[in-house]
């Protein structure tokens, strides 16, 4: 019985894996990272790809993005606008945004 359940669970997980890897399971899904990053996209272009003269922010290393946002928030790095936005997010939220934008 135990073996049967394990086998069944493995099968189900395998099927799910196929569906997830295929990307189909993302249809109808909105992650916290996607919602957070959508607010970045308002000024920095679709997928964070930039809207001149506002710079592209996609594809950045996650740690680098979190680091620069924290530096904006503390005003260690100067900015006109970004310090006001950066102060509104936790490190965890910044990481979720950065992870989403890294893949764009």
């Amino acid at each position, binding site marked *: 019985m135990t073996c*049967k359940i394990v086998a*069944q*669970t493995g*099968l*189900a*997980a395998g*099927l*799910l894996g196929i*569906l*997830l890897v295929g990307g*189909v*399971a993302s*249809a*109808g*899904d*909105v*992650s*916290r990272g*996607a*919602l*957070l990053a*959508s*607010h970045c*996209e*308002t*000024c*920095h*272009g*679709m997928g964070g790809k930039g*809207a*001149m*003269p*506002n710079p592209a922010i996609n594809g950045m290393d996650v740690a680098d993005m979190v680091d620069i946002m924290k530096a904006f928030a503390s005003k260690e790095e100067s900015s*006109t*606008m970004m*310090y*006001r*936005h950066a*102060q*509104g*997010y936790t490190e965890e*939220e910044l990481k979720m945004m950065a992870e989403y934008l890294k893949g764009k």
Partner: protein
Amino acid sequence: MQDMNRRDFIRLLGATGAVSGLTVMGIPTAVLAKASGKVIVVGGGFGGATCAQYLKRWGPDIDVTLVERESKYVTCPFSNEVLAGDLPMDKITFSYDGLKAKGIKVITDEVTGVDAGSKKVTLKGGDSMSADMVVLSPGIKFIYGRVENDDKVAESMPHAWKAGPQTLLLRKQIEAMKDGGTVLILPPPKPFRCPPGPYERASLIAHYLKNNKPKSKIIIVDSNESHSKQKSFHAGWKHLYGMGEGKMIHWIKETEGGKIEKVDPSTMTVTKEFGDKFKGDVINFIPYQKAADLVHKAGLTNKDGWCDVHQDTFESKVAKGVYVLGDACVAGAMPKSGHSANSQAKNCAAAIVSKLAGQEMPTPTYANTCYSLISPDFGISVAAVYGFKEGSIKKIAAGVTPPHPKEKDRFYKNEAKYAKGWYNSITMDMFG
């Protein structure tokens, strides 16, 4: 495997924690947790166009229909640049082709009625349609009768508060004004669409006058005691144009003479409560505002004329499955700006897509960025990030551009540059 029926299979999937909101109607549908259903979005502005885009982006299988009265949309942001002669109208006019290309059905018609119970939308052309959910982003309507003659002055004292022909009419009047003339700007009492708008308007008209009709003056006869980005606007005016009685921009707050009582198009005068009278060669009378007629007729407004919504999802507090966005709704600490509507639309789309997929919506998060140009090369802004706490939208962080000269001139120049970047980006978000 042959011992495992469909129910067992679904139960096992649930046990993996990977899928929520399963139905037993069929394995593929359940496993995919797809968001499907029909959503009608009414109004193709900053709230509606954004919501339609993000519904399709996050829920590609959702049947999304956008109904908008006009075939093209003219943005209120940057319409003050058109007024001042710095931009042509076509640069702030957008088609809905980008939405159509993404599979969003776009219907050009006026919605005459919404049945909140059955989610049925009736069009002026006579057709009607129903959906699982209806999103309303109808904007504002003007309220007349608060000021004597206020319903008779749309041509003689254009509001230009809905961008389009009114913008061009006011531009024509400013261009025709003699050097040494007076422009009166009359902002309505709060709350109104785009709180910094009248003051940016004064700034950019001043920029035009300084270069073309330098003996002219602008008087802002305000119906409020204070205004958005006040210190930063006033510092910019002093720096660039001169501010105060006899200077190019003179701001008169509500308590100096009381409310505006009468506008008279035959003498081009404005009379305040305690008798002060102002004469203008050009008068920009911006009427009192409430949520658009459509939501009034649908029974969705509160006693003040705005729509109460659950501020995480934007679902109406009085009609399930009906959502209200943008200027028409009450959104906690958020101002009635285009960026606010865009931000609200993304949360609303996330809520609907999640609901249709049988999932919980991600924690809401909202932002507002609002630039104002004091001249084409001198910008200021207000920005804020908001969260959902104890049932309403509350500010987490916020800030206004420090008044000139607290920052170097380069700072204000960069703000003006980034304002243009903001506009390019947000219009791409809506119409791209």
